[in-house]
C-alpha cells in the first residue's frame, strides 16, 4: 500500500519537481508511471526510497510514515521494498548468486536460508545455469533478471522498477515484463516507471501519467498515449 498526500518537492536549485500530488496504490496492484523525462517520475521513486525528503506532504508505504523515519531506520525500511534500476546496479565483484545472496546476508539470513532461497529465485528468473557468472559475463537482459531476483529475494511487499527495460531490446524487454507480471501475480505490488509505449499498451494495467510535477491522468486499464 502506497499513499502520497499533498506531496510537493522543490529542489534546492528552485526546480519544482512535484506539486501537491495525491496518489493511492493498493496492495497487489501493478502500476505504470509514465510521462516525459523531467516530469517527476524519478522524484516520486526517490521519495518512495527515502533518498530525498518531500518539501511538504506525507508519504506512507506499507503502513510506515516514510517522512518520520530516522537515518538509522532507513536501511530497515528499504529492506521492505525491492528496487530495480535501468542500469541493473549489480555488485561487479560478486557472481550472480552472490549478488542475490548479499541482499539476504544484509537482513541477517542464515546460511541455510540463503542456500535454499537463492536457487529458488534464480530458477524463477531462469538463470540457474548462470549462477556463478559475474555481471560483466552476462547480457543486459540476464543482468536485469539477476537484479530482479535480488529485489524479490526477501519477499518485499512492494517492487519499484525505474525503467527496467530502458537498456534492453524489445524481445528481451518482453521477457522481463512477463517476469514482472509473474511476480505481481504472486501478490507483490509493482510500480514501474517507463517510456516504453508498447509495453504499457500490451500489459493493460493501471497507468499514471505525470506531467510537470502533477498527475495528469490515472486510468485503471490504460494505454500509454491516451486518445485525446
Amino acid at each position, binding site marked *: 500500500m502506497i499513499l502520497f498526500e499533498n506531496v510537493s518537492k522543490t529542489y534546492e536549485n528552485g526546480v519544482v519537481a512535484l506539486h501537491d500530488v495525491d496518489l493511492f496504490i493498493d496492495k497487489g496492484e501493478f502500476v505504470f508511471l509514465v510521462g516525459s523525462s523531467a516530469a517527476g517520475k524519478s522524484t516520486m521513486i526517490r521519495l518512495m*526510497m527515502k*533518498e530525498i525528503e518531500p518539501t511538504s506532504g506525507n508519504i506512507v508505504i506499507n503502513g510506515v510514515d516514510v517522512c518520520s523515519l530516522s537515518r*538509522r531506520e532507513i*536501511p*530497515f*525500511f*528499504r*529492506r521492505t521494498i525491492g*528496487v530495480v534500476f535501468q542500469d541493473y*546496479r*549489480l*555488485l*561487479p*565483484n560478486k557472481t550472480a548468486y552472490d549478488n542475490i545472496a*548479499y*541482499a539476504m*546476508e*544484509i*537482513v*541477517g539470513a*542464515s*546460511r541455510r536460508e540463503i542456500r535454499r532461497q537463492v536457487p529458488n529465485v534464480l530458477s524463477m528468473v531462469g538463470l540457474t545455469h548462470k549462477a556463478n557468472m559475474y555481471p560483466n559475463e552476462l547480457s543486459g537482459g540476464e543482468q536485469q533478471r539477476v537484479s530482479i531476483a*535480488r529485489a524479490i529475494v526477501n519477499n518485499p511487499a512492494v517492487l519499484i522498477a525505474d525503467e527496467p527495460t530502458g537498456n534492453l531490446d524489445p524481445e528481451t524487454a518482453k521477457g522481463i515484463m512477463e517476469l514482472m507480471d509473474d511476480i505481481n501475480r504472486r501478490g507483490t505490488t509493482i510500480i514501474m516507471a517507463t517510456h516504453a509505449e508498447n509495453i504499457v499498451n500490451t500489459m493493460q494495467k493501471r497507468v499514471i501519467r505525470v506531467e510537470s510535477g502533477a498527475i495528469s491522468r490515472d486510468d485503471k486499464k490504460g494505454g500509454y498515449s491516451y486518445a485525446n
Partner: protein
Amino acid sequence: MPIRNFKRFVSEAVSNIFKNGLMSIASLFITVACLFILGVFLVVTINLNYISKQVADQCQIQVYITREASNTGQIQNISNQIKTIEGISDIEFKRGEDTFAEFKAGLSEEERASYNGLPDNVIDDSFKITLHDISEAGAISERISTISGVSRVENRQDMINIVYSITNAVRHVSVWIILIFMFISVFIISNTIKLALYARRKEINIMKYVGATDSFIRWPFMIEGMLVGIAGAIIAYFIVQSCYSAGVAALNSTPTMSLLTLRAFGEIWHMILIPFVLVGVLIGAIGSALSIRKYLKV
C-alpha cells in the same frame, strides 16, 4: 556483531584486497613507507636512551688525596667524611700504584716503555665515587673538595652536560616527529583509501539501496584497512631489521663507537614490531572509517 557476520566481513575484506589489487598495493606501500620512517625514529630514540644511560653509568667522580694525607693514615677518615654526603651510591679506594698499573696495562708495548723510568707511586691515591644522580656531580664535587686532605676532584661534568642536552633535545624532537608522522600517515592513507573508495562508491551506493546498514558496509572496509596495515607493519619490520643490522655493523667498525655500544636488534625487536602492528592497524582502521563516512550518506 554476530560471529556469522564477522566471518563474512573478514572473507569479504580478504577478497576485496585481491580484487582491488592495485589500490591495496598503493595503500600497502604508503603504510610501509610511513612505518619505516617511524621505525627510524624509534630506533634512534631507543639507542639514544641507551647511550645516555651508559654515559650516566660511566659517570664517576675521581677524588685524589694528598700524599701527606695518605702517609699519615687519614684515608679512612676522608672516606667517612665523603660517605656523609648525600647522593653517593658507592665509594671505592684505589692506591696510586694500582691506578698507574691499570693505566700502563691499557698501553701498547712501545708506549709503555716511555713510562718505565717513573716510580710506581707517581699517581696519588684516590677514591672512585659513583653517584645516584649525575646531575648533582658539580655540587658534590665542590663539597668534597673542601675536605682536608683532598688534593683535587675530577668530574666529567662538561661532557655529561653535553651528552644530556643532546639526548634530551633529540628525545623531545623525536616524540613530536613521531606524532606528526602518524598524523600525516593517517591523512595520506585515508586519502589513498578515499581514492580506492571513490572507485567503489557505486558499490556502496548499491549496498545502501538494498538496505545495508552503515556498519554492515563499514566493517569489511575497516577490516580491509586493518589487514593492509598489519601486512605493511610486517614488511616495514623486516626492512627496519635488515637496515638496522647493517647500520650497527657499519657503526661498530668505526673507532668512535668503541666506547659506546648500540643495542642488538634481538633485544629491541618487540619495541619495533608491537608499535608497528598497533600503528598499522590503527591507521588502517581510522583511515577507512574516515574516508567511507562521506559515501555512506545516501
